[in-house]
């Protein structure tokens, strides 16, 4: 018995966690999960009934095997006639089951769009090969506050994600918060999310988008509205960089593609690095954010994430060290 329980545990373990549609932490994910649970139960009942009927038919065939058809024919005929009378009942059950599912699907769909008419915080998420550009509508200046690869959501408030793609089709998928929605070049898709449970979650690109599709993850943090406002204010502020060798090397070797507000770097091709050290991960969830990983990534991006658009920059080890030290101060 214990062994059997132990065998089931790893299976159930997959149902929870930071990236699971079976562990909803927001209204939209909850609506989808309810629909899933209902379909699971209805399909479960259908499965049991069909498997039971099949077993019974097999048992009956086995029970009367080799019997004289004239002797027992009358009996089986009687049973078959009774079964035929049950047919309208079976048809009714099928129609009822399908009606329940269609109705539930209709209401789940309505629930996903329930917030669409009301105003919400606007956040632009743009898929690039292979990272996420994230921009918050600044409630003060009404401009955009840009960050990358980390999405913060205020608890209990609806956020309207404006999804787009810069190069190829990507798909935004944070299963604990909402269902997946494609990001398609040349058009924008809207996804409303209302997160309820505090904590960190993980999102992932859900549409194959090239070599490093698997390394295109997204950290999602649901925090209290006050903490969210404080975080957004910190992101809005320009960096306060220390001048030095690292800053000078960055300006020559990195600033063509990366921006650091307040330090004169204004490239837009790569992720905004104004507060890079305050993030949880590096290179779209590929590495955790540590001083050592920063330097490793700067020195050998093509070895860590082969095919990434970040070029191999020929820096001396001393320069790579200086740039990593500099970036680690950008909190």
């Amino acid at each position: 018995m214990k062994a059997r329980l132990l065998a089931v545990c790893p299976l159930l373990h997959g149902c929870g966690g930071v990236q699971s549609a079976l562990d909803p932490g927001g209204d939209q994910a909850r609506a989808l999960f309810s629909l899933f649970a209902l379909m699971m139960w209805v399909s479960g009942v259908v499965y049991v009934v069909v498997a039971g009927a099949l077993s019974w038919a097999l048992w009956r065939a086995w029970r009367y095997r080799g019997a004289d058809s004239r002797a027992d024919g009358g009996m089986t005929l009687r049973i078959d006639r009774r079964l035929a009378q049950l047919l309208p009942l079976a048809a009714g059950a099928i129609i009822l089951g399908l009606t329940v599912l269609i109705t539930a699907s209709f209401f789940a769909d309505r629930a996903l769009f329930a917030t669409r008419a009301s105003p919400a915080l606007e956040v632009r998420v743009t898929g690039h090969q292979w990272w996420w550009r994230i921009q918050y509508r600044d409630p003060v200046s009404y401009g955009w506050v840009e960050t990358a690869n980390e999405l913060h959501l205020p608890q209990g408030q609806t956020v309207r994600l404006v999804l787009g793609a810069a190069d190829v089709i990507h798909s935004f998928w944070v299963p604990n918060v909402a269902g997946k929605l494609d990001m398609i070049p040349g058009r924008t898709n809207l996804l409303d999310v209302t997160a309820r449970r505090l904590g960190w979650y993980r999102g992932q690109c859900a549409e194959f988008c090239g070599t490093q599709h698997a390394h295109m993850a997204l950290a999602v943090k649901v925090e209290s509205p006050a903490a969210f406002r404080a975080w957004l204010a910190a992101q809005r502020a320009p960096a306060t960089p220390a001048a030095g060798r690292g800053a000078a090397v960055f300006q020559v070797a990195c600033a063509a593609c990366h921006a650091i507000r307040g330090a004169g770097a204004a490239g837009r091709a790569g992720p905004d690095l104004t507060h890079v050290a305050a993030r949880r991960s590096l290179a779209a969830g590929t590495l955790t954010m540590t001083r050592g990983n920063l330097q490793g990534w700067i020195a050998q991006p093509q070895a860590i994430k082969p095919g990434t658009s970040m070029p191999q920059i020929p820096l001396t080890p001393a320069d790579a060290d200086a740039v990593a030290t500099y970036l680690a101060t950008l909190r």
Partner: protein
Amino acid sequence: MRTQRGFVAARFAVALLLAGCQREARDIGPSLPQTSPRGAADPRIGYYQDNVYQIAQGGRYFSWYGCAACHGEDALGVRDLGDGRWRYGGSFNQVFASIVRRHGSLDYATRVPPEQLWQLAAYVRDLPQHTPEKRRRLSVDQVGEPQGQHWSGPVR
């Protein structure tokens, strides 16, 4: 005799189709050129110039490094890279040298890594072969790409 001829034709057609597979072949990993081309016959040139993937990457870096600010579609005279006339020579190493040395204070030799310079040279040398339709197609495809210090969003 007839079947044999048909067989040869089929083999030729398959070979022609398979040849298309090589046009995008790429090595993924950290082995990259760290030096400039040595003359017009450098054996590495073909790897970039004859490869659609490398040329397309050159196009992306072309917009990311902001080259289109001066060498855009409506550029005129020496800045027009699509007219097939090369002021400083049109061979691969000459175009490469023009990118590196002839941009004054922009100093692409230190600001752009070697592999990207190879891809840019291949892309720029490919430009004169672009038909107007292809040029239009590329500009539609690259609408969402950042251009140097500007990015106006995925939709324009």
